[in-house]
Structure formats: C-alpha cells, structure tokens
C-alpha cells in the first residue's frame, strides 16, 4: 500500500513538474492561485476524519474548522483565479499565437 502510494507520489511530482515547465510569465500568478485552490483538497481529509466518526467535542470543533478552512481554500481559490483570468479574456487570441 505505502509503496504503491509512493509510486503515485513520484509520478504526481513529475506531472506537477512537467505541467508547469512551459507556462508564459503572464500566467504565473493565476497559475499560483489555481494550484493554491487545488491543495484545498485537504478538505477531504477533514471530511474523512469527521465523517468516519471522530469523537469528542474539541475534536469535532477542530474538524469543522478544518473543513471550513479547506472549503475557503477551494472556493475562494477557484473564484479568485477565475477573476484574474477574466482580465485576460478577449485578449487571449493574440497571445495564443506565441
């Protein structure tokens, strides 16, 4: 299990590396923001630990906060990225030629 997961980890690292290596300067900031939204996936961790039966009030409070945090990260991240990219809309055709 762990070893399979390590294989997945290494491959995902290569994917992350390869996907970024040809991005134009202009898109650095939206890209940072987009990847930022993606790590909001930690939300799943909160869902799993809480959903599969965490006990104790403190633990539950902490997990609700964690889920809220993760959700802020996800929702806010994607929305902000979209707003940034919206700035480039309509202008993108020229740029795409490069």
């Amino acid at each position: 299990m762990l070893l399979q997961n390590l294989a997945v980890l290494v491959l995902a690292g290569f994917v992350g590396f390869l996907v970024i290596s040809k991005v134009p300067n202009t898109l650095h900031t939206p890209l940072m923001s987009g990847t930022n939204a993606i790590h909001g996936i930690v939300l799943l961790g909160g869902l799993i630990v809480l959903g599969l039966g965490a006990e104790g009030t403190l633990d539950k409070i902490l997990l609700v906060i964690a889920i809220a945090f993760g959700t802020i990260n996800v929702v806010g991240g994607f929305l902000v990225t979209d707003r940034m990219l919206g700035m480039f809309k309509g202008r993108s055709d020229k740029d795409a030629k490069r």
Partner: protein
Amino acid sequence: MTAVQILYIVAFALFVYGLMGLTGPRTAVRGNWIAAAGMGVAVIATLMIPGMGNWWLILLGLAIGAAVGVPSARRVKMTAMPQMVALFNGVGGGAVALIAWVEFRQSDGFAHEAAYVAVASLFAALVGSVSFWGSLIAFGKLQEILPGRPIGAGRLQQPINLLLLAGGLACGIAIVAGASAELLVIGLLVLSAALGVLVVLPIGGADMPVVISLLNALTGLSAAAMGLALDNTALIVAGMIVGASGTILTNLMAKAMNRSIPAIVAGGFGGGGGPAAEVDGDRTVRRTSAADAAVQMAYANQVIVVPGYGMAVAQAQHAVREMADLLEARGVAVYYAIHPVAGRMPGHMNVLLAEADVPYDRLKEMDEINGEFARTDVAIVIGANDVTNPAARTDPSSPIYGMPILNVDESRSVIVLKRGMATGFAGVDNALYFDPRTAMLFGDAKASVSDVTEELKNL
C-alpha cells in the same frame, strides 16, 4: 470503495487536465473550471465513502467555508489579490495542521498505527502549521497591517529558526518513538507556528510573492503527506502536483528577478525604497514639468510606456490608458514594455493594464520590445526602477547584475515618473536618472500622469 477510488482517479485526471489548460492563455479560464469540477468530483466521492456520518457538522463546515470564501473572493480588489492568495493558502495549511492534530488525538498518539502514518501526519502538521502562520504574516505585510520592512533578530535570526525547527522535529521524533503525551503534538504545532512567523517576518514586502509561492508549495506537500497518512489517492496526487509545480513556479519567479530562494528566505533584503533624497550628492538630475513632458510626447513618432511597481502603488493604470489614448489620437504609436518582474508579482503589469482595458497587442514582452527602444523618441518610465537600471548590464558588483533589463537608456529621451530619488526594490541607485537624456517628473505617478493628460488636452 471501488466507486470512490475510480471517482478519485477521475478527479485527479481533471486536475491535471485543468492545469494543462491553465498554462495557455486561451484555455486558462476553462482549465480553472475543469480543475474546480475535479474538486467537486473528489468531494462527492469522499461523501460516498461507506459509513460516513456526522452529516450536520460536515454541512456546517462546508457552509461556513463557502460563506466566508465566496464573498471575499468576489469582493477583493485586483491589486489585493496577492494577499488574498496568501490567505487562502494559509487556511489550507491550517486545515492540514488541525486534521493532523485530531488524528493524533483520535489514535492515542498514533499508538496503533504504522510508523509511516505517524511520520506522514507529523510532517503534515509541521509544514501545515508553518504554512498557516507564515501566510498570515505575509498577508499582514502585504495588507499593510504589519510593517512591510524586514523585522528580524539580525544575526540571531538563523540560530533561533534552527532551534525552533529542531524543537519541532524533536517533538515529532518523540511521538514516532512511542511517546503519546498530547503536549508533544501541541509543542510541535506551536514551535512550527513560531518558525513560520519568524521566517516570514524578516522578509521584505517585495519578496512576498516568491514567499507566497513557496508556502503554496509547502501546503501542497503537507496535503500529500496527509494523503499518505490517510491512504487517500486524491490527496496524494493533488497535493504532490501542487508541491512539485509550486516548487518550479517559485524557482521561475525567483530566477526572473535574479534572486535565489535561500537568499530570500534568509531575509533582510528587499525592504523597498530607502529614504527619499531628492538629489544625489555629487551628480545632478534634470527635472521636467508635466507641460514639457506633454509637448515632448505629443510630437514624438513613437512612445514606449515602461510601467513598474510605482504605477501599481499609485493605481495609475487608468490614467496611463487615458494619456495613451490621447497620444494615439494624435498619431503617436504607443507601446507598453512589460518586464517579467516589473511590479511585485509575475504578470502584475499585465493584470493592471488589462484592468484598464489597454489593447493586448500594445503590450510587448521584454524580448520583443528591447530592440525597439533605439527607434523610440520618448520612453516614459512610470514608477519602474530596477527593471530599467543599466547597472544590471554594466556593474558586476551590483546586486542586480545579470538581470535582464529593459533597454530604456537606448531611446532618444527618457521621462521618469516617481516621487523622489528613492531606490526601488533592490535598494540600488539607478544611473539612468543621471543620464543627460533623462528628465525626472517627480510626484505620485497617478497625479503626474493626470497632469500630463490635462496638458495634452490643452495642446
């Protein structure tokens, strides 16, 4: 679990596909939504795991998150985006740290778990906590709640940081070795929080984008570690993709401004302009007026606008656009020279000028426009400094030596708009200002540009 696993694969495939879209200007908007769809799939898949419960609490958490996240993302001003990204990144790291803490509590200090679960969880807790607190400080600095200048303990800084890190690691090792006192995990969280704060505090406001990118990568790595601990493929893949791509991105950003990541994290450099001193000791600068500048440009054939950090500070982009429109109406060809690291985040100038509806074909990247300066009558530098500093080409002892710059000094005349003689981000003098072909128009960029615009209207 089979359906969940398959949906996870679908989810991360969407992430990757979305990211591939994000790297091209034409597909970026769609790419972002594809990645968001992937996130939706991942959440739904997780909620389908057999035995899920605590539904009301889950809903509560999701609702709070949405209620906070949506409006803040909607309302934030374009120029405040960097600190917003920092904040979103921070809460992600905070979530990881909290989950790791709860995991510790639920499993009696990982007593019945494989060692790797403990190691991965504690790594996630440490990095998540650093990321949370570091991002908060970065936010505070960019939002000007905290002073932007470096705050540090001088030579003691590094030893203190190392001590904090060692303390955090020691707590972690004790837990992995079998200790299960909750104080240990709290100690780990607190020490790494202090580390996060102390690492970011001494970093100048100007280096913040790089630091945010670094913290972003760290949060990704902590998410991946959490994925290993929870044996959750979606977390592993998504976290690691962000970790890897964030690392590269940080590097690209640092490289574009000729800085190294260790140097930035070591801090102390890049505190923004020193005190303003209008005239330099022995050399003198030539001053000009808005009226003169207007005449000079109105009768030029070609004008290149060189925007920089000062234009962002002064929020002068709309005024600049208006000025350019007037010039073009008079038949002057106007281009914008965009240096890759002008401003304080990559693409900063593009975003601002796009906001002001500057036609895209007027924006020229450095390589494209550098040959043009020699053919240009007037280069008007609006709040840019380092990106025009010829020392980068000529003075090997300069801290910016080797950074590619805009060859503003090749144009027939240069007008520089800034408030005084303060240095820019790199804290070095700019010989351009003492060039006989250069004239300085002192004052806030927005005010100066508006003045020039008025004069143009009256011509």
